C-alpha cells in the first residue's frame, strides 16, 4: 500500500505542491538529505511532464503521484492518463554521465508531437535517478523512480 497518494488537477501551479509533499515524505522515509534535492527535481520533472500531456490532450482527470516507503527504498510513481501511441520503455542503471547518453540511450523520445522540453525532462530524470523506469501504453504513462533509504534512528 502507498504511504502517501496524491491526486492533483493537471495545472502547473500544483507541481510545486507535489514536489514539497514528495520531499517531505522522502525525508521521513529516511532518504539521505543530500539526495532530497534530486527527489524534488525528479518528481517535479515527472509531474510537469504529466501536466503537459494532460493539457495537450485535453484530459480532465488528475495526475497521480504514489509515494511508497518500504524497508530499503523509497519509491515514487507518477502516472498520467494520456494515450501514448508508441510504447516508451527505459530501465535504469542508466546513470547518464551526460545528456547525450541520457537522452539517446536510456530514454528514447517517442512522444507524439513531443516538444524539446518534454525530452529534456526525461533526460534530467534519467541523469539524476539510478533506478528509473518509464512505460506507457494507450491508457497512460508511468514513471517509476526509487531511492535507497537509510534506517532511521529510533525516535521517541
Amino acid at each position, binding site marked *: 500500500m502507498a504511504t502517501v497518494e496524491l491526486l492533483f488537477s493537471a495545472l*502547473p*501551479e500544483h*507541481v*510545486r505542491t507535489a*514536489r514539497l509533499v514528495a520531499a517531505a515524505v522522502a525525508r521521513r522515509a529516511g532518504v539521505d538529505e543530500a539526495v532530497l*534535492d534530486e527527489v*524534488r*527535481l525528479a518528481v*517535479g*520533472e515527472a509531474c*510537469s511532464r504529466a*501536466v*503537459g500531456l494532460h493539457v495537450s490532450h485535453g484530459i480532465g482527470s488528475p495526475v497521480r503521484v504514489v509515494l511508497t516507503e518500504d524497508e530499503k527504498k523509497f519509491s515514487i510513481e507518477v502516472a498520467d492518463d494520456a494515450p501514448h501511441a508508441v510504447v516508451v520503455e527505459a530501465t535504469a542503471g542508466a546513470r*547518464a554521465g*551526460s*545528456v*547525450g547518453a*541520457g537522452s539517446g540511450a536510456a530514454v528514447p523520445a517517442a512522444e507524439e508531437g513531443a516538444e*524539446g*522540453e518534454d525530452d*529534456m*525532462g526525461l*533526460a*534530467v530524470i534519467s*541523469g*539524476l535517478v539510478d533506478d528509473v523506469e518509464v512505460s506507457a501504453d494507450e491508457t497512460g504513462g508511468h514513471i517509476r523512480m526509487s531511492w535507497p533509504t537509510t534506517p532511521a534512528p529510533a525516535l521517541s
Partner: protein
Amino acid sequence: MDLSLSTETVGDRTVVRVGGEIDVYTAPKLREQLVELVNDGSYHLVVDMEGVDFLDSTGLGVLVGGLKRVRAHEGSLRLVCNQERILKIFRITGLTKVFPIHTSVEDAVQATD
C-alpha cells in the same frame, strides 16, 4: 516561493536578477521578461541565478530560448551561478557547453569572448 525578476543595465549588458523557483508554473514569466528585453533591443544579457532556489527543465528551456533569441541578433546570454545543485542540472543536460557560466556578475559583464 514565487519567481522574482529585476533588471539593471551595466554598460552594454543587461543584468537580469532571478530569485525563487523557476518551474513549469513560473518559467513563462521569465520567458516573457527575456522576450521583452530582446524586443526592446537588449541583446547582451547576463542572467544572475544566485537567488534561484529551484530550476527544472522548463527553466532550462526558457534559457535556451533566450539564447536563441539573442543569437539571432548576434548577442550573448551569460549565466551567473555558484550553486552546486543548480550547476548540476546544467551538467547532466550538457548545457554547460552551451552557456558561459560565470562566478560573479562583474565577471560576466566584463567577459567578451
